[in-house]
Structure formats: structure tokens, C-alpha cells
């Protein structure tokens, strides 16, 4: 009897950390492009996750994100990363306008015992694809950012993590009374990533 089985791939802790940190790099680029934080011309198209994705060509932003993803990967492998938030702020006033919140649940057993898990790579890719599509579609409800903006990245880790050299402690930069939209999540079976975007509820009498 012919049966269709989904080929499962072996996922190690290191592999999973790589998938998640890579995802974050691409997601950050996509957000910066779609929300107009940097000009369109400064991005180049590549293929990833079966989609045309945009990556910045700006050297500073590139290296910022590269440092970021390698640090995230380290924390993910140690099972210490709880959340990563990309914050978009007004350049002139510093007000937080949007937060892209990626929350991570780690399978503690894997970290402790060095086990591996099984899941189809394709399926993980499909899940990531769905999130990327939602990021692009979110123009449907997000307010227009018609002023120059800057971004920053916050990482929430376990308390016992030492603050690395290029990072500093910060307040959470929350939005008061935000509108929040939960997007899709993806799961490597070792790390589960939930995505949420929160934005400022724009009132009619704002400038």
C-alpha cells in the first residue's frame, strides 16, 4: 500500500538556533523595507523561503544585523533567549511607533541533554513563509509611518546572562495602549517562535 510520508529532517540545537536567528535577520530586513525605515533603493532582492526577500545593502545596517543574529544564535543555543523585539521609533521625537515582538519558547530538555528532534525542513519553511507574507500584508492595518524613523533591537534573556559588550541594558520601550496583532508562529520542535506586532493607536488629533 502506497502511503505518503513527510520526510522528516533531524534538527539539532545548533541547527535550530541557526534557523531562528537567520529567520530573524530576514524578518528584520523585511520589516525595515516594508515599513520604509530605509529607502527602497538600498535593498536588493534575494530568494529565500521560496519568496523574493529583500536584504539591505547598507553596510552599517548589514553589519548591525549580522552581529545581532550571531549573538542571538549564541543565546538560542544556550537556551537563554526569551524574546527579541524590533522597535521602530520616530527619529525626531524618539516615540515608539511600532514593535515587532518575536517570543521564543525553548525545549529545555534539548538544551540540557543535547538531544535532537525531527521535523520536515519544508514544513518549517512553509511556516516561516506564512509569517513573511503576513509581515508584508500588515500594511492593511498599520498606520502610515510618514516621518523618518529609526529602529532598535531589544533582546529579553534569562537573568543570568551577562550583557555583551555591544549591548546595554534598557527599558522595554513599550507602547501605551497598543493595538496588537498576533501573527503566525513557527516551530522547529526545539524553538517555537510566536510573532506579534503592536502599534500605536493613532488618534485624529495627532500631528
Amino acid at each position, binding site marked *: 500500500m502506497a502511503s505518503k510520508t513527510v520526510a522528516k529532517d533531524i534538527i539539532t540545537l545548533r541547527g535550530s538556533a541557526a534557523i531562528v536567528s537567520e529567520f530573524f535577520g530576514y524578518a528584520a530586513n523585511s520589516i525595515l523595507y516594508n515599513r520604509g525605515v530605509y529607502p527602497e533603493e538600498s535593498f536588493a532582492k534575494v530568494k529565500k523561503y521560496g519568496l523574493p526577500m529583500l536584504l539591505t545593502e547598507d553596510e552599517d545596517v548589514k553589519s548591525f544585523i549580522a552581529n545581532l543574529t550571531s549573538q542571538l544564535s549564541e543565546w538560542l543555543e544556550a537556551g537563554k533567549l526569551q524574546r527579541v523585539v524590533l522597535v521602530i521609533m520616530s527619529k525626531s521625537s524618539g516615540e515608539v511607533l511600532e514593535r515587532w515582538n518575536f517570543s521564543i519558547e525553548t525545549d529545555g530538555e534539548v538544551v540540557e541533554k543535547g538531544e535532537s528532534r525531527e521535523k520536515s525542513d519544508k514544513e518549517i519553511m512553509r511556516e516561516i513563509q506564512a509569517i513573511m507574507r503576513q509581515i508584508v500584508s500588515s500594511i492593511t492595518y498599520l*498606520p502610515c509611518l510618514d516621518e523618518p524613523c529609526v529602529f532598535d533591537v531589544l533582546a529579553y534573556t534569562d537573568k543570568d546572562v551577562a550583557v555583551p559588550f555591544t549591548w546595554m541594558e*534598557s527599558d522595554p520601550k513599550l507602547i501605551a495602549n497598543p493595538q496588537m496583532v498576533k501573527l503566525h508562529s513557527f516551530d522547529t520542535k526545539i524553538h517555537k517562535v510566536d510573532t506579534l506586532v503592536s502599534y500605536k493607536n493613532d488618534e485624529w488629533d495627532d500631528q
Partner: protein
Amino acid sequence: MEEAQAHSILDPETEFLASKRQTGNEWELFKENVRPLKRGRKIDVLNEALKSHSDKEIRKSLHDQRRKLIEAIDHYEGDDPLQPWLECIKWVQEAYPPGGDCSGLVVIYEQCVRTFWHSDRYKDDLRYLKVWLEYAENCADAEVIYTFLDVNEIGKSHALFYISYALHMETKHKVKTANEILNCGISRNAHPVKKLEDTFRKFLARSMRMPKTRDEDKDENHLPARSFGTLLAKGDNSKRTAESYDQVKRKQKADRAPLAIYKDKNTDTGLDHQLEMPKKGLNTWQTLGGRADRNKENSALPSKWTSHKIPQRPGQWVGSTTSGPIIEVFVDEECPQSGIVREKSSTLQFRQVDNKELKKETELLRENPLRNFPLNSLPR
């Protein structure tokens, strides 16, 4: 990069994530039906609204909700009568994600602006200005609205007015006008000034890149741009005969333009006239007359036509007691006027009209946004 320690009190995002509540996915499923709003949308309202297009129950509740908001406008007793209008407008925007003619959005913009246009209190109110600007965006030609705002000094202290106005003129290729508008705003110190200056800089950069424009004479705003007859009369440029009509037209306008462009920005008295508009006859915009005067078209009794005589056809008159050249127009005093009621604050309109009427009125307004304004307030 910054690292934050996890807090014991849950922030709204953590709380939301932990709660396992889901956001509906209607927004994504029906994203083609959603007109993005500059100010963004509330996600729950959006999802509900999108559901309604397939659900009679929800559609009925939308109808009821609209009625409630209109009643709130009618019964408001506080000191900011614009507020309930804004609530209603915001709701219509969110409840009808695609916008469109049946939403009544354009109609309510119009009613709102018409209610307060003569009010000093809201002349400088940013919220009120924004309603006007949204209305303008929905019309076939917003220029008449911007002119109206300018003459009536609505929003003149806000950078947003000049930015929107200039952008509109720019899209009509009236770059010189756009330039003057932005300059005017800057000289009037419209706030936030920095935003205005940034916009101006970007505008200049864009206009450097653009090819020389082919129009610009403001006095000919509403006239078609043909003037073959005068071309040959001007004989001061021998090259003219060799050039195409287009180039000649451009040159001709450029010859006239210098008179319009330069304004001495240093004199204070000059400021109010920086924005050059056809000034003749505009005093009529500023006087409104009393309410009775404004509504005279609705309350006037039919009377003899004094200016135009229509030759009478000799023949039988049925049902008329008077003979002679008087044509009496029959007015049924008891019949409620269908559609547009202008006596009250016209919010009654919503209850009486149906979707078709809303659509029709919307179309009419798009073509002629000031059509309901009293005749003596419009530019000649």
C-alpha cells in the same frame, strides 16, 4: 542593541501572547478589500467589519451602530460638538474597510465640514482640517476645496494644509503654484515648521529632476489650455514659427509667469496675499448671511420668473384657476423632502436614505464637493 530583563508584571504584549488568544485572520484573507488608512486601523474592528460582508446579522448591527452614532451627534450637549462627528467618521472608516460609495463616508465628511465651516472655533482645529483633507482626497478635483479652505482661512496655521495643497497641485503639474503654497506656509510659520521645511526641500529636489512644466498660469485654472489665436499675434520671438505648439504655449506662459511668481517675502503686509488666488469676487466667500439667507433656496416661495420669459403655448389649461403668463410651481408643503433635508443639521439624511441614495449623493459630491454649500459662499 539593548537587553531588557524580563519583568514580573506582564506588559500588554506578553500578556496577550501568554493568553493564547488569537487574532482573527480575516484581515489577511480579505486584504484586497481593505483600504489602508493613514492612521492605521483597529484590528478587531477591521476583522469584524470584514466578517460582516458575509453575514446579515452583522450588517444589521452595523446599520444600528451608525444610527446610534448619528443620534449621538444630534443629542450632543458638551462643548466640543466636533467630537461626536469624529467618532462617527472613525467608525464608518473602520466598519467599511473598502470605503466605497455605499459606505456613506464621503457623505458624512461633507456633512461634517458643512456643519462647522463658518465656525471660528474650529478654523484652527487640526482635527477639523483633517476631515476636510480626507474629503478632498475623495473628490474628483480637490482644488476647489483647497481654494475654499484658503479663502476661509481654515487650517492656515497648520503645516498639513500647505503640504497637502502643494502635493495636490504638484500632481496636477502646477509646480510653481505648489512652490508658492509651501513658501506661504513657511512664511506664516505654520506648525510644525520643520515638517514643512523638510517637505519643501524634498519638493525642490523633485522639481529639479522634473522636465520643464508646461502650464502654470493660475488665472487660467479652469479654462482649457488652448490659445491658438494669440500665438501669431506676438512677434517678438522669431524662433517661434519653427517650434511646436506645445513649446510655444510653454514659452508664452513663461513670459507671463514672472509677474505672478516673485513676491517680496519680507514685508508683513505682503504675507496675506502670498498665496495668489483669483481675488476678484472672493469677498462673497466670506459673508455668509444669516441662516435664513443661507437656506433661501429651500424656503423661498415660488414666484414669477422675472428674468426669462417662456412663450406660452396657446391651449387648454387644466386645473389652473388663473389664466395669464404666470407659471406657478406646485409645492407640496406637507411632503417631506426626499433625500437632502437642509433645515436641521442634516443628519436626518442617514435615516431616510438607503444605500442607493448614499451612492448617488456620494457620486454627486465627488464631482462637485461644494454642491450643498450656500450659493453665495462659492467662488464665482
